[in-house]
């Protein structure tokens, strides 16, 4: 509908609804037959036309506030359909027959309306087929009834008056309609149990009111078809229930006021500047949605992240809704929430406005964490790249130069066996071989410095034996690790022990040292403790810093205690899940 025409059209529709109700009420009041048929004409006419007016007006209000939902329009339609059925109280033959023909329509419209709550759309083909068949039944059954008569003198469609057939067709029609209403009520009750959160009392109250209304219609029809004792009282109660439904609905719409107070509470909470981690709790409380999740938008990365800076995907599955939050024209975050909240855009808007700064702060926090995460990742990659480079060098040395030198030494040795006599030549060959042996020893040390091949080949426990044996002081070695660990972890652990023992030997003047390696659950814990002078300067050498890099690149932690005169203790904890 065009925006400028909308208010006018709404006013016209509202006036039409009210006028219809007034017209119908006046007709009923003036119709002498109404009194004998319905008991107290005033009460029933009043209630019935109250339905017309209240559904039209409430429907228009809902339509205006929630143009995206078809529920308001549907309500208006229910109001007008109800109006047509009240025409059966007029004395004009045409309007009377029209009203009678549509007499069974209002219950089906209520059924349709209640089942279509809150979107105004029926969910699924089964429900749609059910409602369509109810409409068809209402029209067909009444069309069958009218020719048999029993409606008084104004029935234009009375062709074959037959008292017995009229009674049977009335009973069939009323019982069929009540069966539809009961099925509808059961559907609503199932829906109430199945999908809704207890946190939205207004919503549940509405469903209860709708289900009750349908049950009341069913009761009324059953009672009327068998001429039960309290038809009149049941009718009043039914109309009152149906009439109350739009009031409850209106109250739910006006829940905005409650939402405002929730937003007010939120603003007070945010004034205390909660930690970003607590922001979600505050927002969840204000929105009454404990399932609320926050995703922060990082434009530089082009992803949403959680508070830890870890990327998250926005859900596109049913059962979750997403509200995007902008601030000063920049997208900053997304709320992932229960779709029931879509019916409360005011609440969402209020929360969005109140939490803008807090969300922006939390976003910056998340961005910082994401950058740290990235940095950590790149540090791990650098350490890993350096490691594999060195591993490759060691391997090349092992397979190349070292093998060749050994083969050369072997050749010289065999050559010596074939040289007869000349002791000078033999001595020369021996000298060359000694040189080769020295080169090999040097190369061996270089290779070991490049990469501890024994660690990758045979594991940490085997490699540490050599470190303990080579240390220039007694080392008490205690390794409690079963099996192999990931290679980068073993290599890092090896370097921690190796470097620490070197430091002990160089600086500590310790008498002995202890190396303990334990795997506790999902962590490898290494400790190198000495009884030396302590006071190690971790900044002076790059050794400790390099170790910390290695350990931290694996998400681990390296700590050094080195009190003056109290020995030094290096402890590394590396996760090994």
């Amino acid at each position, binding site marked *: 509908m065009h925006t400028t025409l909308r208010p006018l059209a709404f006013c016209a529709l509202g006036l039409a609804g009210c006028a219809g109700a007034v017209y119908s009420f006046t007709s009923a009041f003036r119709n002498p037959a109404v009194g004998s048929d319905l008991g107290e004409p005033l009460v029933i006419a009043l209630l019935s036309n109250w339905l017309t007016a209240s559904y039209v007006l409430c429907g228009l209000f809902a339509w205006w506030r929630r143009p995206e939902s078809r529920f308001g329009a549907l309500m208006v339609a229910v109001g007008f359909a109800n109006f047509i059925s009240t025409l059966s109280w007029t004395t004009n033959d045409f309007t009377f027959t029209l009203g009678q023909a549509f007499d069974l329509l209002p219950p089906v419209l209520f059924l349709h309306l209640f089942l279509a709550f809150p979107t105004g759309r029926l969910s699924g083909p089964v429900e749609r087929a059910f409602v369509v068949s109810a409409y068809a039944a209402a029209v067909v059954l009444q069309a069958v009834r009218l020719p048999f008569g029993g409606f008084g003198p104004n029935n234009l469609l009375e062709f074959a008056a037959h008292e017995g057939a009229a009674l049977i067709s009335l009973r069939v029609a009323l019982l069929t309609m009540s069966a539809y209403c009961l099925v509808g009520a059961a559907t609503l009750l199932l829906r109430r149990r199945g999908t809704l959160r207890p946190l939205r009392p207004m919503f549940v109250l509405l469903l209860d009111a709708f289900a009750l209304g349908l049950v009341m219609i069913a009761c009324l029809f059953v009672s009327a078809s068998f001429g039960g004792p309290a038809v009149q009282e049941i009718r009043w109660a039914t109309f009152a229930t149906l009439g109350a439904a739009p009031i409850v609905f209106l109250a739910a719409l006006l829940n905005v006021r409650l939402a405002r107070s929730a937003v007010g509470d939120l603003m007070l909470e945010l004034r205390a500047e909660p930690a970003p981690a607590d922001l979600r709790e505050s927002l969840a409380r204000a929105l009454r949605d404990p399932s609320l999740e926050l995703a922060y938008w990082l434009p530089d990365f082009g992803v949403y992240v959680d508070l830890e800076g870890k990327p998250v995907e926005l859900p596109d599955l049913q059962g979750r809704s997403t509200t995007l939050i902008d601030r000063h024209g920049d997208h900053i975050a997304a709320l992932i929430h229960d779709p029931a909240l879509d019916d409360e855009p005011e609440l969402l808007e209020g929360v969005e406005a109140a939490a803008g700064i807090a969300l922006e702060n939390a976003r910056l926090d998340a961005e910082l964490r994401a950058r740290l995460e990235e940095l950590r990742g790149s540090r791990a990659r650098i350490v890993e790249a350096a490691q594999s480079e060195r591993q490759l060098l060691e*391997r090349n040395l092992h397979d190349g130069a070292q093998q060749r030198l*050994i*083969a050369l030494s072997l050749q010289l040795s*065999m050559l010596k066996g074939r040289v007869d006599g000349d002791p000078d030549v033999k001595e020369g060959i021996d000298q060359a071989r000694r040189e080769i042996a020295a080169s090999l020893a040097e190369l061996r040390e270089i290779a070991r410095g490049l990469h501890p091949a024994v660690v990758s080949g045979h594991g940490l426990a085997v490699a540490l034996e050599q470190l303990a*044996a*080579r240390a220039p*002081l007694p080392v008490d070695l205690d390794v409690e690790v079963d099996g192999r660990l990931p290679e980068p972890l073993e290599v890092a652990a090896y370097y921690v022990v190796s470097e620490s023992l070197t430091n002990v030997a160089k600086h500590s003047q310790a008498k002995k040292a202890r190396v303990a390696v334990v795997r506790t659950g999902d962590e490898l814990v290494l400790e190198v403790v000495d009884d030396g002078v302590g006071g190690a300067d971790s900044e002076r050498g790059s050794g400790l810093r390099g170790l910390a890099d290695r350990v931290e690149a694996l998400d681990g932690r390296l700590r050094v205690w080195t009190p003056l005169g109290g020995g030094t203790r290096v402890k590394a904890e590396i996760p090994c899940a």
Partner: protein
Amino acid sequence: MRVAMAEDSVLLREGIARVLDDAGFDVVAQCDNADDLLLRVRSSPPDVVILDIRLPPTHSDEGLRAALELRSSHPDVGVLVLSQYVEVGLAMKLLADSAEGVGYLLKDRIGDVEDFVASVRRVADGGSALDPIIVSTLLARQRPDDPIAALTPREREVLELMATGSSNQGIADSMVITLRAVEKYVSSIFSKLGLPSTGTESRRVLAVLLYLRS
């Protein structure tokens, strides 16, 4: 004497084969990986197997695993492991149960043809050959109240040779002393270290090794 060997460097494999051939060994298998070696040994067990600790495909612990497997499946076949690094931890793994018919030498030792051939022969005969670097590392190892320090230089020399697997005759030859003198040194060493004297020469290798390591 029949020898089977696994070494992935062609240069070294052929060099070793020639040296052993010249020394009168019958080289029955030259393999470049551990699986082939195991197959050849199973079909026709030699007297001794020589293998590199680092073999294809991953060049990590294939050689060692093959050696340990042969030690348990073919206890009569001597196993001599060669490596470009000798590590106390690996020596302890290889000699875990006994030092009989087992050797662990630095690859460089091949160059000393005479010594190398002697080592191969010793291992084939059920003796042992442990690289001097391992022994010297263990001897140099610092320990509180070190009884090693109570040994005389000659005794220390005898201990080193003993630990590498040399027989009493071998020690006598290399130190140019009498067999009788060697026996005296040996019993003096055992009493100074508080070790019970053991029967065979390879058993005392393990005893000394365990002592030095503890």
